[in-house]
């Protein structure tokens, strides 16, 4: 499957990470934890601060608390989690009791502060090169990234391929995407039914607006992005064994918008509805402002780097997904001497919650195993 091109001169780096967001930081920290030196890793990306894009989006929807739990952090090992750190810092047992009963969700500030620690401690900045990689070429024993390399092991953490905006909203001057900075008009229509939409309902109501929730289906209420067993081998074993069509059907089902059950949130919405400030509608009306809480584009085709890689190397795909091995590697381009792994949302075929922190670490840990195996 690989097409050996002319191998440029060998570099000192053995592993490359393409992308510089949260997934990239998780992968870098994991490799460092596994014993790789800075000099053995290079990170190609556009943002020197791996939390920049994510924190901008979180700020746009005024997110204060994570959906993830105590282990939703970017350090390589799950222990100690953010609950224990918070308990230590605040000299309080409350975060530990909350995490024991699944009620602990880190504050965004705490998550970002810890991410900054991980970044500093791992030496992320010393391995970072500001550069957008446009082409990956498989060569004998590795991969060439826009002429650099070859690197024996490459981890793709390219992130979401842009924000999704329904066609009917394109060009409408009233429309702002939820992840762009915005204020709230007095009459707001919010399109979508996931986490961002739920946050925007609260924000708009708090700003005194009346809200129309435009959605085609009722949101699923679940604590995490996917059911908990799918974060471990208990649920993943059957998922990995399932035939392709079933595999894809599971991913389609899991991509339905969802947000966690929360009694206070429900009471707020019910109260606003009783006051006539919250309505549900199937389509847009004449609202002054339309907030598109419609998430991100879906599928590898929207990512030029991945699309080019698939086309050049005729990689196995199914519908909008890149077909990966259970360890998040690209089967056609991974062998005893080289590894191409996919982390983040593009890695959903291997791990349905790939676009979460747990997903980032899942791919990163398996990447580390492969890198260590060939040391």
């Amino acid at each position: 499957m690989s097409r050996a091109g002319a191998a440029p001169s060998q570099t000192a780096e053995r592993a490359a990470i393409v992308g510089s967001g949260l997934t990239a930081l998780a992968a870098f920290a994991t490799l460092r934890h596994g014993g790789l030196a800075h000099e053995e890793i290079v990170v190609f990306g556009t943002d020197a601060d791996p939390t920049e894009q994510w924190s901008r989006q979180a700020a746009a929807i005024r997110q204060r608390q994570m959906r993830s739990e105590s282990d939703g952090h970017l350090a390589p090992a799950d222990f100690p989690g953010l609950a224990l750190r918070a308990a230590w810092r605040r000299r309080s047992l409350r975060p530990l009791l909350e995490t024991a009963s699944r009620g602990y969700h880190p504050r965004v500030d705490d998550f970002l502060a810890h991410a900054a620690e991980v970044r500093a401690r791992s030496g992320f900045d010393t391995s970072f090169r500001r550069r957008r990689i446009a082409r990956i070429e498989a060569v004998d024993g590795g991969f060439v990234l826009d002429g650099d390399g070859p690197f024996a092991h490459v981890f793709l953490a390219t992130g979401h391929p842009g924000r999704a905006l329904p066609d009917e909203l394109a060009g409408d001057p009233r429309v702002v995407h939820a992840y762009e900075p915005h204020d709230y008009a007095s009459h707001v229509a919010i399109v979508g039914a996931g986490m961002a939409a739920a946050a925007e309902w609260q924000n708009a109501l708090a700003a005194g607006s009346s809200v129309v929730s435009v959605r085609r289906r009722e949101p699923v209420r679940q604590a995490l992005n996917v059911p908990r067993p799918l974060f471990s081998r208990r649920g993943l074993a059957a998922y990995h064994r399932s035939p392709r069509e079933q595999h894809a059907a599971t991913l389609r089902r899991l991509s339905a918008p969802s947000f966690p059950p929360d009694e206070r949130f429900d009471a707020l919405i019910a109260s606003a509805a009783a006051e006539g400030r919250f309505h549900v509608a199937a389509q847009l009306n004449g609202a002054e402002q339309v907030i598109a809480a419609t998430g991100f584009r879906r599928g590898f085709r929207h990512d030029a780097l991945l699309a080019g890689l698939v086309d050049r190397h005729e990689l196995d795909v199914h519908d909008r997904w890149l077909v990966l091995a259970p360890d998040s590697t690209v089967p056609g381009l991974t062998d005893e001497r080289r590894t191409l792994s996919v982390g983040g949302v593009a890695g959903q075929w291997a791990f349905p919650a790939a676009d979460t922190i747990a997903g980032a670490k899942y791919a990163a840990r398996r990447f580390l195993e492969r890198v260590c195996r060939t040391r």
Partner: protein
Amino acid sequence: MSYTLKGRIESRLVSALPALIVAFAIHRWWAVYLVAIMLAVGAALDATVYDRLISYQPAWLAVPLGALELALLYGIMRAIPIHAPLDAALALFALAWLSAQLFAHAALPRLQLTYAEAGGELGRSGVLAAVLVPVLVFIGVGGAYATRAPTIHLHGVVRGPIVVDRAETLVGGTVRGGIVIRSSHVTLRHVTTVGGVNGIDVENATHVMLDHVRVLRAETDGIHVRNSGVMVEHCMVADPAGPWVQGIDISYSIGRPTSMVSGCTVAGVREGIVTHSAEVNVMDNHVLDTTLRGIVLGEMSMDMASGNDVESAQGVGILCLDHSMCQIDHNVVAGTKVDPSGDPARAGVAIEAQYYAQAAVGHNTVIASPGGTKQYSSSTITR
């Protein structure tokens, strides 16, 4: 965490290691048996209940599941039976439970990054644990079985006194002239003694179990314990050979493991159950018709008397004496009689503290005992 069945069992085996090491280190076979039963109960629950019913196990669930496993373990211990000191057995269980929590939430996720994602499976370490831990348990249980104390069944009436100077178990029979125990790890079960200076005499020994023994016609003490740790359960001491005979006397045993007298009936002796300089739990006994006192916790002892019925004692029902610290609760003291001597401290007192003793009393029932509850000679009673 969402465990796989394999992950549950591997995690359980690995986290049993601290308890297993302690069990070997303290050289008590009951501890090895206990760890073996813990593992067997846990693995059975993993396979038949937990794996089927619990797809995701939040941390708080470890508390009720731990309580369930403790209850099953206790039931099995009683059924087999395994004669383990309750406090030490509970401590060992607590160690195992705590180890399981620390391993699952801290050590294993730290040592193996993929621990949670792997559903608790440990890869090669898990396979090693799956072999090593059962082998260690097998060696321990096998060693305990191979070196267990011999059991000797007595039949009919045996002329005594019998001197027991090695670890062994005597079962059944009637011994005339009493039994003298001079070794640790001795058990008497369903043995009757008739006569003897002391019915059963235990000195300088620990882990002695007297289970369902009957002591008749003793000349000094029914059960006489010095510098020892004993467990006396469901005994009977009665029909003394003279007016000065004491029922059960455990003395000068501070520094030895805590003794226990439980479920015994002591009748017609001078003092029913008496301690001096000892740590004894006196629980759920029936003491009646004593001519001096029913129960005495005396001479710098640190004792507890709980759930006992003391009937028709002459003078004093329960006495905390001479610098002792006593906890006296949930007893029934009935019909304590006024001593004809005219001593107010023996005027049918149900519960009494004497001579710098400190007694904490609560929830006792006093019936027809004219002296009530009293303290004398710089003693204190707190309620």
